[in-house]
């Protein structure tokens, strides 16, 4: 019987993004999450006595330069070595960009595939042959799979490859190839990497993305881990996903249509948190809370978002192992504003001017000169990524417009003597 673990996209020591520290946040619970998840992988390998581990690329994070990460990795390989477990790695786009990859001397039990041409390594004691090729540079646009050799008879053939296949949303289109390219090689198992969401694409032969080991931001929700494969008599008998993550990311949408009081909002949020926790198999949660619904106290929510956020954090803190990432106030009022304010009222005029306002970057900076000063002072990181500051894309501008409108309406209603 042969048993091995297939993992990929470990991104060791890349930090979790988007979590704002606050009092009562479970800081300790999530510290060094990628390392701890990796440790769990090592424990799993030793406990289940696997024969070898396949790492299908992106062991390191491209921008990360601290060589301690490599030393940590080497130490863990040492543990595996003591238990007689071998490790096979193809480097991915991130590894190719990483300085650590190039400098790191590999322990004896670790094999890194060549980046010049496909290599095939026979494990005669197990009747297993592994074919693989590493990335030579950050962006590989050739079809690497095409050059992989045909299957070797009488062996269990494994293909190890870092690829985006025919393209996956949110992932760079590297080492493109089709499922047919892979199937045509006649291998028994294709161990792929690069796509962070676990995906089992085909079962004869098995073609698997194991997903990353630990989610690192709100777009990487749900359970994360590695895949354990068991082979008996040259046939795969089980392909099992194992959860190894330390921190679970989740978005939690709460409908507040029925809520008329602050207490009922708190209750609804608390219940939603409880449900999420139930599904998180006891892991610490990083939650994005999205409030929706035509809500009777919409204005009260929008008037004091900071205060509400604090209250929701308090609820999260009450559970001990929940970190509230952000709160998105996406509730709407029960009636349309035009219906409410009629025609010739000042607020109706205000609404119109908001709707007609151009909000591209130049206009915005012209309108609010303080923003230029702020922009200059902010760290460069704030202007990059999925949620860049003052993103001039159309939906962001639309969202900003709505936010301005809702904030003003809420403020004006709350101070119009209505309460």
């Amino acid at each position: 019987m042969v048993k091995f673990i297939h993992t990929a996209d470990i991104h060791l020591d890349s930090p979790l993004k988007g979590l704002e520290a606050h009092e009562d946040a479970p800081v300790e619970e999530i510290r060094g999450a990628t390392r701890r998840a990796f440790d769990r992988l090592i424990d799993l390998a030793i406990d289940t006595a696997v024969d070898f581990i396949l790492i299908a690329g992106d062991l390191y994070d491209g921008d990360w330069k601290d060589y301690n990460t490599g030393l940590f990795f080497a130490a863990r390989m040492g543990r595996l070595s003591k238990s007689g477990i071998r490790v096979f790695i193809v480097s991915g786009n991130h590894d190719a960009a990483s300085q650590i990859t190039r400098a790191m001397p590999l322990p004896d039990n670790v094999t890194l595939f060549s980046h010049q041409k496909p290599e095939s390594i026979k494990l005669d004691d197990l009747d297993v042959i592994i074919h693989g090729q590493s990335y030579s540079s950050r962006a590989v646009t050739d079809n690497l799979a095409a050059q992989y050799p045909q299957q070797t008879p009488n062996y269990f053939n494994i293909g190890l490859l870092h690829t985006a296949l025919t393209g996956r949303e949110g992932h760079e289109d590297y080492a493109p190839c089709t499922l047919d390219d892979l199937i045509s090689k006649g291998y028994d198992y294709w161990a792929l990497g690069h796509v962070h969401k676990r995906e089992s694409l085909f079962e004869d032969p098995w073609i698997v993305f194991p997903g990353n080991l630990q989610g690192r931001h709100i777009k990487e929700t749900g359970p994360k881990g590695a895949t354990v494969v068991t082979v008996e008599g040259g046939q795969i008998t089980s392909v099992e996903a194992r959860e190894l993550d330390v921190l679970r990311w989740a978005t939690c949408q709460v409908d507040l249509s029925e809520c008329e009081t602050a207490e009922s909002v708190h209750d609804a949020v608390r219940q939603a948190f409880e449900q999420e926790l139930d599904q998180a198999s006891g892991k610490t949660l990083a939650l994005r809370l999205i409030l929706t619904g035509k809500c009777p106290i919409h204005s009260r929510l929008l008037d004091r978002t900071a205060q509400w956020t604090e209250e929701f954090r308090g609820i999260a803190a009450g559970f001990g192992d929940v970190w509230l990432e952000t709160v998105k106030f996406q509730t709407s009022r029960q009636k349309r504003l035009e219906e409410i304010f009629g025609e010739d009222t000042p607020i109706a005029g205000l609404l119109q001017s908001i709707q007609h306002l151009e909000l591209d970057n130049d206009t915005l900076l012209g309108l609010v000169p303080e923003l230029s000063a702020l922009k200059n002072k902010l760290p460069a990181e704030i202007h990059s990524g999925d949620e860049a500051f003052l993103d001039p894309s159309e939906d962001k501008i639309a969202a900003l417009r709505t936010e301005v409108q809702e904030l003003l309406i809420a403020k004006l209603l709350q101070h119009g003597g209505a309460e």
Partner: protein
Amino acid sequence: MRLKRLDLKAFGPFTDRKPLAFMSRTPDLHIIFGPNEAGKSSSLRALKALLFGFPQQTPDNFIHSYDQLRVGGCLENSAGEEIAFQRRKKRKADVIDAAGDPLDLDLLTPFLHGVEPEIFESLYGIDHDTLVRGGEDILAQKGEVGQALFAAGAGMSSLREVIDQLEKEAADLFKPAGQLPRINMAIKRFKALQKAVKAASLSAKEWKDHQAALKNALAERAGLEKDRDHHNKALHRLNRLKQAIPELASLKSRQDQQSALGKIIPLPPDFTEQYRLVTQTMREAHQQLQKDTDRRKTLEEKQKAMSFNTDLLKQAERVDDFHQRLGEYRKGQKDRPVREGMRISLRRDAAGLLQQVRPDLRLEGVETLRPMLTKKRIVQTLSAQYEAIRHQLTLAHKQGKTAELEQKEVTRYRDTLPEVKTSQGLVQAVKPAQKAGDMDTHIARRRTDIELNKKHCRTTLKRIGLWSGDLSELMTISLPRSETVQQFETRYSKRVEERREIEKDRKKDEKDLRNAQAQIKKVMYAGEIPSETALAQTREKREQGWQLLRQQWLDQADVTEESRAYDPDLPLPEAYEGFVVQADLIADRLRREADRVANAAAFRTQVETLETSLAETIKTKAAVDQRLRELDDVWIRMWEPFGITPLSPKEMSGWLADMDKLRFKVSDIVKKEQELQRDVEQRKMLKQAMEKTLAAMAEEAPPAGDTLGPVLILAETVLERIAGQKAEHEKAKERQKKAKKASHQATEDLKAARDALAQWQAQWQKAIMGLGLEDEVSPLEALDLIETLQSCFDKLKEADDLKKRIEGIDRDAADLEAAVKALLETVAPDMLALPLDQAILQLRIMLNQAQKDATLYHKLSEELDALQEEVTGATKNLQDAREQMAELLGVAKCEKPEQLTAVIAKFTEYQRLQEKISDTEATLARIGAGMTLEALSRQAAEMNADDLPGLIDSLERDIQERIHPEINKISQVIGEENTRLSAMDGKGTAAETAEEMEHELAGIRRLSERYALLKLASKILQQAIERYREDHQDPVLKIAARYFNDLTVGSFVDLRTDVDDKGEPILIGVRPDTARLTVEKMSSGTRDQLFLALRLATLEWRLNTSESMPFIVDDILINFDDDRSRATLEVLADLSMKNQVILFTHHRQIVETATRIKGKGTIQIHTL
């Protein structure tokens, strides 16, 4: 929209209250007045609940539970539609109809126009707080026009607060040059963390460099260590030889000395020691025996010399006893005279006291009085009783006297009271009058009411017109029935309809005729129409010409004349030719223009038909007109009997309806008049009944007149007076009864007190009998005497006690003396002559001496016994030692102890040399480190000893000065590298710090977005305010100026804009004398009115574009003075012409003011 009815079915304090009806044609001002607790606030909430549903929590459930709460009402919109519905407190389906079935919410939309409750409250509601806050806000923003208009237009009290909040929150987040705002601080922290990450990071190159450095250093150190080891080996060999050479020499010398000693007698190892011990023991035993013998001799001599008093020693206990009793004896001798003196003095005092009680008795006879002491308690008790009885006696006397006086006083008072009249009759007459109520007012009001109604009816009659006459006559005339008029109306309308139809026909015909004629004309204008007639005529003319030509041509006839007649202008042939052509032309045209010809013919026919039809129609019309005139005649004739020239039947139908209404009203008046008459009669009857009874009671006559009131008042006064008198009588009677009872009680008490005194006196006599007194004594005196007697007895007892003590002292002294004498006779007869105390002391001294001597004697005896034991021991020791010495001589093969010393010395020297040889051999073995003695000796022989130090020194110096420093240096490098590398242990510090950086970044991102949002919102709001001002400043300010003028009763005639120092437009109030006041200079009340003026102006402005909604005003007049209150009410009344106004108030003053004002709208007051 306006509210028509508010139904407080089950809400707050209300349960099925009579609906508040807002019935009027114009929107109107409604004042809902409720004093405190009447439910004003509840009804305001009820109104909002009706319009928008119940809020989730309401304080109005203190009577009705949530599921019972109901409020109903009726709304009317501008289209004149109405809706009546109820609300209950439910989340869904809360709008229901009268039967309780749910109504579709959409039914309310045409009335509420989707207005939300918050918006309704802000746009259409104003209360005192909002007003005051609004006024304050105007001041705070210094009358800034944009904000004032915008706030008023949006129904907001504080716009400034909104802008301030936005700006403040933004400033708390970020300032371009700030340090403390949250974003500024977060950026600072972020940068620090960035640095920390860099510091904690390890570069790959660094790690590799250190790895290589370590490897090199380790190799270098290994080389050096090899050198050092080599040197050390050589050194070891040389050092070994250096040590071995002197030792080898010394070994040789000792071996030589040992052989020189010759034959040796071997002795056991402890032989010398044993010899020493035996010799010492023998010497010590000799010395001990000599010392002990000397000591025994001395002690025995000492003992023999001692002697002491044995008899005295035996009596030692008795001597101690005497010594102890001596102290007591001495004290007794000292106290005795004092006690005797005290005893005599006490007896003298006792005699004195007895003298006070019974001068006739001597001290010896005092015991006869002792029984008196037992009576002390009885005397005390009786003494206390005596005081109580005396007090009772005095009190009873006093009360008796008071009661008698009161009795006399009451009797005199009763005599002065007047007699009471009987009031039964009057009561019976007054009761019905009271029950009838305020009949005078009632009658007067009714009369006025009737008069008013009559006047109104007359006015109405005049307004209706056509008929004049008296109201009573109106009731009797029998006007035509409305059905009849209806018939006429139908007939008229039928006729008129006919005529209209005919007229219509006629007009149509005329129009058609005109059309047809026009068509003909049109055809004609296009050229003359060829007709068959013209063709025939032309052909005939042609024929004529032909005939003339033929006559001329064939017959040669002269046709000049005919030719001229045929054509005066042309010669015949040309004329004929012309006709031929013409006939052909006509014929051609007839064929060619056949359509036109036919059309023309058709139009002509049409014209003819229409003309006939028209003539017919005119005739019919005349007939219809005739019939109408006839109908008019019948109509007018019908009204002649009433002297009325009728209007059209339709109008008359209305007139009849008005008349009917009027007649109904008049009949109502008649009915009321009859009721009035009945009331007047009843009043008269009641009045007479009372007057009659009053006269019978001889009371003063009531005032003349019809009214019942004065008589009733008089009668009630009389009744009250009689009731008062009756009460007086009752009171006096009661008082008399009480006085009598008191007098009787006093007599009883007196008797009881006297009896008690007599009984007491008997007991008293018995109690003091034993004292043997001759005179009467008071209880207090008796008590004193007994106390004195008690003291006398006490003193006597004390004297007796003292006597007993003296006797005791004497007895003890005698006992002691006897005992001492007895002892002295046996042990020291020479001391018998001494006084007792000296003898005892002397005895004591002697005893002490004897005891000391005895102790010494015993000690000497013990010492002698111990000496004897020592002597025995020493003798035995000496014997043992002699036996041991004999044994030793045997071992050493000697005959005398003196020879032993030399044998021992020789053996000892041999042993010493043997030990040294062994030591040297051991040293050499150690130096040789495994090398045999022979090998070592061989090596030593080969080496020149003088070269050794030089060789050793050179090697040592090389190690110390070259190899060791280098190893140290390289080891330090290795240590450093190892430390560095072990610090590079793959720790996660940098990664963890990077995570903290991400935390900060997330915070910065969130706060920056919030900041952008806040700043943007603030900017946009300010722009909107400015735009609103630009658009509305002129029209709205104009309206507001009017309101401001009205509200301030002309204190301000206008409201203008001006610019302040910063160029911002601001509001300015203009005084009648054109003085301009900024808002800061206005009083706070005036600012409130300014805010109100702006609110009202925007409300009025909004009416141009929006459906009106009721304007709810909640007690805003609290701080207004009377004039401005009235002015405000007038303004609201004016506004209510266009927009319903509902004002809630707690203050009756406002209601009263409202009833007096002269506004344009109608004012209705509703009291809760």
